């Protein structure tokens, strides 16, 4: 569905406010903000779990290198996303204080920073760890920057559904860094994050739909309305809950993981149901806020449980 004409037109290039050729006033903190450290923390955590539960052994120095490259690759994606989306960020309250729209970092600085880190992280991972992991990281950066940021985000309400794949790759890259291959277990980890992304971001977009509408971003609530978004959140949560259990059902994880996935899946479903049910006033806002907050916890808890399960022997069969 093309929605370019439905919202406000997004103009590029960024205009005179972003085009001044003054000496840089960017601080180190501004550059660190370009890396989206909060997103990076989830990437690092899920990649670490992917590495630790993978069969085989990796030297700690190689493991650290892989994790560092994955983190920097994710940060590079964030910087390139902020470079391209500076016009959107400038009109959204949630993002207008980011370094580029706030005028602290020039777009060219962010582009050079992101591109340099992207090339270095991919090359280093490919040469120092293994080629498959490097190739997967390169594809992840490509997918996030070109497919999601430059194409899908501005053209379809399915943007975060398809684009969510970029955030789902890190555990697979972590796994590949250890084993040099990709099997069903990392695919299941990928699927959990992939299916978790829509309810997570749509809960946020219910709260920020005015922002997205002003910026002309065709998020689902802007295009299809809040009721349809609530229905889609419930559908994706209904799919996510059993997929979250899949590692146990397929024998990749044990009872501990299964219990956590069951409890967290039930909680996600209950909160998604409340979002679906409470459609007006403060209860609707509160329901969306609670789902968004818990969805963050959901991924951390599931991957932490996977790791704990492995540590107590639940994944011993993989060795």
């Amino acid at each position: 569905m093309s929605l370019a004409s439905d919202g406000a037109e997004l103009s590029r290039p960024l205009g005179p406010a972003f085009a001044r050729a003054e000496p840089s006033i960017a601080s180190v903190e501004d550059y660190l903000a370009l890396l989206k450290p909060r997103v990076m923390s989830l990437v690092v955590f899920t990649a670490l779990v992917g590495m630790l539960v993978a069969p085989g052994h990796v030297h700690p120095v190689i493991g650290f290198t892989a994790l560092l490259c994955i983190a920097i690759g994710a940060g590079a994606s964030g910087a390139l996303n902020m470079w391209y989306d500076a016009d959107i960020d400038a009109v959204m309250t949630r993002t207008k204080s980011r370094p580029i729209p706030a005028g602290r970092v020039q777009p060219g600085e962010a582009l050079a920073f992101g591109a340099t880190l992207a090339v270095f992280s991919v090359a280093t991972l490919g040469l120092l760890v293994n080629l498959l992991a490097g190739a997967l990281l390169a594809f992840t950066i490509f997918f996030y920057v070109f497919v999601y940021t430059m194409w899908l985000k501005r053209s379809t309400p399915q943007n975060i559904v398809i684009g969510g794949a970029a955030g789902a790759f890190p555990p697979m890259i972590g796994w590949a860094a250890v084993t040099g291959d990709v099997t069903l277990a990392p695919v299941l980890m990928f699927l959990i994050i992939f299916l978790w992304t829509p309810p997570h971001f749509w809960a946020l977009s219910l709260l920020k739909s005015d922002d997205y509408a002003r910026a002309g971003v065709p998020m689902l609530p802007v295009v299809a309305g809040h009721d349809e978004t609530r229905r889609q959140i419930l559908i994706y949560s209904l799919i996510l809950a059993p997929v979250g259990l899949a590692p146990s059902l397929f024998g990749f994880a044990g009872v501990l993981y299964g219990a956590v996935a069951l409890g967290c899946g039930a909680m996600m479903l209950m909160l998604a149901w409340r979002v679906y049910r409470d459609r007006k006033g403060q209860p609707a806002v509160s329901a969306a806020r609670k789902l968004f907050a818990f969805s963050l916890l959901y991924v951390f808890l599931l991957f932490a449980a996977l790791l704990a399960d492995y540590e107590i022997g639940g994944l011993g069969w993989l060795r």
Partner: protein
Amino acid sequence: MNTPYDENRIVLTEEQVRRRRGRSIAIALSLALFVVLVYAVTVVKLGPAVLVRPL
């Protein structure tokens, strides 16, 4: 931030100089970390064999 200019060159403000120094230090530390990383990985991957490889 308005930057004072003289006839031939840009004169940085104190704040701009301070921030540039911060960025330079960060780049230096990053490069040092990269060198150490490549060294450590070389030792881990090749070990003593690093000295007996054909030239």
